[in-house]
């Protein structure tokens, strides 16, 4: 593939200090020095791919964000940083909304996903594999089709709306401002419901992996020391599952904050998220500098949020 046009690999001049070491030193079991260049040849095609189609585009987008001009006359780099301020002051409500929706969806995913992950890890017994399949299988129906199905489920006068109406819950949610009148579809509730649904597996699988690693004897030990079940959970199980909680929340929050499919299919103009704005600016309005600036702000906001979160949760070594 791209290896054919390989330049005389620059890494060649920089052999790792380890590579000179010769016959396997104690800490590097099995790492044989067949040829110093082997790892670089293995890396070259894939890394070139990522550099050209992932890293380089970021640079292009950075340069696009400081351009001015129009589609007819062409865009030129004018170092017009004001675009950043302009788009932010225009679209900050959508920003706040995206982060809020993503945060709520993440919390809901955690609340819904934890019991299921716990069930699979400790209580499912011989049903474990079947339940795991049921968690993964919905993935295989295109997620757009499944999101469209939510349109049917939440439809006006549908089952969910009827039940909520009978329980007078819609009055409560309307008062809270997350639904409007007699409908659920095209309200924030519907969008958050869709986001929660779509990213739930990304929460459950990491949770399950970290719960499964916990030695069940620890539970027995806690029980033998007269810990009540809930105390066992609070003091033993939950702390040990924290790596799963952290990676699960990240895997849910990041894509949810950038998503525009749920807000588009299940929401209305009042529930537009920042992804919808970026998509519209790029593909309909064709205002590339504004769109590029917006997506950089989104990236920065998410990176900042994730960094703070990782600091707070104290599991930086996770990544």
């Amino acid at each position, binding site marked *: 593939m791209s290896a054919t046009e390989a330049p005389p690999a620059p890494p060649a001049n920089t052999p790792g200090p380890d590579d000179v070491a010769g016959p396997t030193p104690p800490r590097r079991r099995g790492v044989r020095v067949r040829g110093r260049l082997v790892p670089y040849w293995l890396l070259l095609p894939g890394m070139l791919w*990522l550099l050209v189609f992932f890293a380089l585009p970021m640079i*292009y987008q950075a340069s*696009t964000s400081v351009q001015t001009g129009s589609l007819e006359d062409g865009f030129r780099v004018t170092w017009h940083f004001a675009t950043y301020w302009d788009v932010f002051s225009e679209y900050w409500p959508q920003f706040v909304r995206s982060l809020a929706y993503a945060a709520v969806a993440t919390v809901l995913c955690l609340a819904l996903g934890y019991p299921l992950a716990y069930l699979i890890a400790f209580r499912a017994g011989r049903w474990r594999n079947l339940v795991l399949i049921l968690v993964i299988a919905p993935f295989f129906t295109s997620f757009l089709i499944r999101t469209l199905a939510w349109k049917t489920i939440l439809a006006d006068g549908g089952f969910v709306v009827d039940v909520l109406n009978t329980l007078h819950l819609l009055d409560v949610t309307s008062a809270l401002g997350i639904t409007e009148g007699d409908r659920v579809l095209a309200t924030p509730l519907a969008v958050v419901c869709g986001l929660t649904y779509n990213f739930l597996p990304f929460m459950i699988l990491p949770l399950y992996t970290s719960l499964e690693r916990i030695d069940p004897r620890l539970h027995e030990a806690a029980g033998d020391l007269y810990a009540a079940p809930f105390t066992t959970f609070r003091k033993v199980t939950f702390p040990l599952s924290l790596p799963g909680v952290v990676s699960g929340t990240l895997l849910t929050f990041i894509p949810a904050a950038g998503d525009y499919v749920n807000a588009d299919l299940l929401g209305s103009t009042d529930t537009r998220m920042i992804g919808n704005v970026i998509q519209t600016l790029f593909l309909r309005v064709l205002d590339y500098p504004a769109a590029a600036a917006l997506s950089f702000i989104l990236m920065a906001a998410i990176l900042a949020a994730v960094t703070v979160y990782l600091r707070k949760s104290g599991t930086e070594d996770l990544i």
Partner: protein
Amino acid sequence: MSTRTPTPRDVAPAARRTPRDAASASRARKPGGPLRAVRRNLVVIAGICTLAYMILPNVVVMIFSFNKPNGRFNYEWQRFSTDAWTDPCGVADMCGSLSLSLQIAAWATLGATVLGTMIAFALVRYRFRARGAVNSLIFLPMAMPEVVMAASLMTLFLNMGVQFGFWTILIAHIMFCLSFVVTAVKARVMSMDPRLEQAAQDLYAGPVQTFLRVTLPIAAPGIAAGALLAFALSFDDFIITNFNAGSTVTFPMYVWGSAQRGTPVQINVIGTAMFVVAVLVVLAAMLLGRRRKRQQGG
């Protein structure tokens, strides 16, 4: 298994359980009994509720694949019909987009799996200078919101004046699947015992022979998992494709468009078929694995 004499270990838990079970049984007869059972199994009940929430849309998709809608939109139940199942390709362009998606997914899987496996081996088996940089370049695409990646790749293609279509989609899909393959293969290769390869070489196997006969078979489950993941991700991707497809229509894009124009029942048929096929394939793989394990163990 069956002929084993019971050890103290087997007996102990049973003995320990008896008094507690007796206690709970006696309590169950009291009026508060059922409520107590609910409280004890709260996790199971909550978990099953979540499972139901996850499967509900699939059930709806399945039911509505037997609907005969009056208008263009298949959102309200009208009456039962198997029309869509007997004529799954009856709507214009849908099956074309489906086969295009399958082709792209197949090529993207091949590309991402080959490139990703190479990277994974390099990362696990060798020490070299740029490791940290390589690791973060692998991690970033997974931590980046899809819109940002999609939009930036689009600006690159626009700047280079590339014609959008099959190739731009394929390039984009290989790019974002690559990291997932690397992660999956890495996990497997890391748990591999390197002494197996040394043993092969001590038995005078050449590097190629060692790789084909020892390394590759052991790494195969990880590579297969990575490939499966890549296929699923590529086949289902909408956001990145939406930005980099031009006027080419993949299956997710067809579904997206139909949400605006009117959704044919056939979409539900395809959705249901995908679900059923996936469940059957996974079940078959599971049964096969269990039988093999039993044969080896027996």
